[in-house]
């Protein structure tokens, strides 16, 4: 009994130590990326190439999802607003929901699933097939040549994708609200223009998506670089990227929302 308890405590302690060590390694890895980012900017073509893979190729899922989310917001929002006789405020509801919350958060979740998992799998497989080792053997730093361009590509792509998501969402809300249901077009756009603030709403949304971009891409490159070089190792790392990134986005969103949209900043 006592021996079992002691063993359980020892397992708990070693498990916690291992997690802390990995967290420490992830933090050092983040610093290493920042310190080795010179190549990603000096040879910006490397980063542009990754922006194509992480950002441009994610556009289809981002644009289609944004359109549908906006259309659903239009339907649901109008239904609720109409109960209070405020159907004309549909534009405000759609725009604020998307710009402040749904744009950054859903685009972030989709980005983690589409691009984050691909980054992890690619780096993990490069490690498993000794491509990373070959690069090191050729005296080329893989953090500078492989990791940093992917990291910065993710950080640059994420706010742009969130902006596209919000834009298509607003267009979806317009299609359903104005064209389908018959909300007054002038009221839809003018109320939106009057109520959406560039600094408090749009800039805060951009900051959110930038933070999500850093978090998702950091997790993705770290999981790929730290993946055991086996089929199960890469598959586990890819899964962890999606799960950890998604949880990180939701947790960070709560913290950022609390900081940005409550207290003195509340509109």
């Amino acid at each position, binding site marked *: 009994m006592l021996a079992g308890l002691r063993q359980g405590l020892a397992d708990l302690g070693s498990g916690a130590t291992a997690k802390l060590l990995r967290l420490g390694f992830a933090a050092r890895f983040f610093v290493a990326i920042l310190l080795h980012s010179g190549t990603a900017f000096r040879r910006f073509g490397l980063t542009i190439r990754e922006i194509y893979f992480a950002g441009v190729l994610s556009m289809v899922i981002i644009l289609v999802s944004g359109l549908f989310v906006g259309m659903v917001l239009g339907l649901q929002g109008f239904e609720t607003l109409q109960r209070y006789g405020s159907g004309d405020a549909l534009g405000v509801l759609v725009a604020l929901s998307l710009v402040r919350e749904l744009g950054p958060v859903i685009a972030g979740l989709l980005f983690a699933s589409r691009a984050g998992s691909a980054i992890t799998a690619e780096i993990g497989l490069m490690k498993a097939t*000794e*491509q990373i080792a*070959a690069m090191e*053997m*050729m*005296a*080329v730093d893989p953090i500078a*040549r492989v990791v940093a361009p992917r990291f910065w590509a993710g950080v640059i792509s994420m706010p742009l994708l969130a902006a596209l998501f919000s834009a298509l969402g607003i267009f979806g809300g317009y299609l359903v609200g104005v064209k389908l249901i018959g909300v007054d077009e002038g009221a839809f756009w003018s109320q939106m223009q009057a109520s959406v603030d560039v600094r408090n709403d749009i800039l805060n949304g951009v900051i959110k998506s930038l933070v999500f971009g850093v978090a998702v891409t950091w997790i993705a490159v770290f999981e790929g670089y730290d993946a055991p070089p086996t089929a199960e190792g890469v598959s586990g790392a890819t899964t962890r990227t999606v799960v950890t990134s998604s949880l990180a986005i939701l947790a960070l969103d709560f913290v950022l929302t609390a900081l940005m949209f409550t207290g003195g900043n509340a509109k």
Partner: protein
Amino acid sequence: MATAPIVEIDKVSFGYDPAHPVLHGVSLRIEPGSVVGIMGQSGCGKTTLLRIIAGWLKASAGNTRVLGESVRDLDSDGIYALRRKMGMLFQFGALFTDMTVFDNVAFQMREHTDLPPDLVHDLVMMKLEAVGLRGVAQRMPSELSGGMARRVALARAVALDPRLMLYDEPFTGLDPISLGVIARLIRTLNDSLGQTSIVVSHDVEECFGIVDYVYFVSAGRIVAEGTPDELRRSAEPFVSQFVLGEPDGPIPFHYPAPTYEADLAAPAKNA
């Protein structure tokens, strides 16, 4: 005056964890211009030895001098500077799968030099010509056979004319023709480019056919050394078991285990 060895390893020990050492007090010398084989069965520590020479792993004891540098005293910049004088052929080539054959071979030239594109093109074509694969310059690695991929990787490894070439199991998984081609290339590139080569392998005939000297490693120790002819005549039980491919001998057929009777009488755990 005797020339300084390209690689000098003196009483090197290493273990991933102190309780299970992989190498115990290994010493060897590799002379300039030679092709040296490090042989032994899988898991004996020969690849670990190669990684210590490449500065990938730090020996826990002993000294390693490579191309005149003490590897354990080098920082990461020093290790990278040393590696620019080395080339390594990986077991399965390790070509960059997102680049063409041409870009793979040009990789180091573009990363480490400011050569104009015309010159890079000519140098890449010369390297590909040396391995007989100029005709696949624009193909992707996924379009190559295993033997061709290994030859492209060899062209990439010698792209900047390294002084020391490391070959990690270069013959594994190749058909007899590709195997003969790779073996011949290792020898001819070594001699024509004035390199020194270390070939880690467990393929006896192919390795004996191209090397000048062989070190046999077993359980992390050098158990025999000599020229291929000397080793073929060796009465050392490990060497004759390995060279003749006998299933039992100093390297037992059975992995250490409880007695057969004890295992059969034990209650089933995983059935």
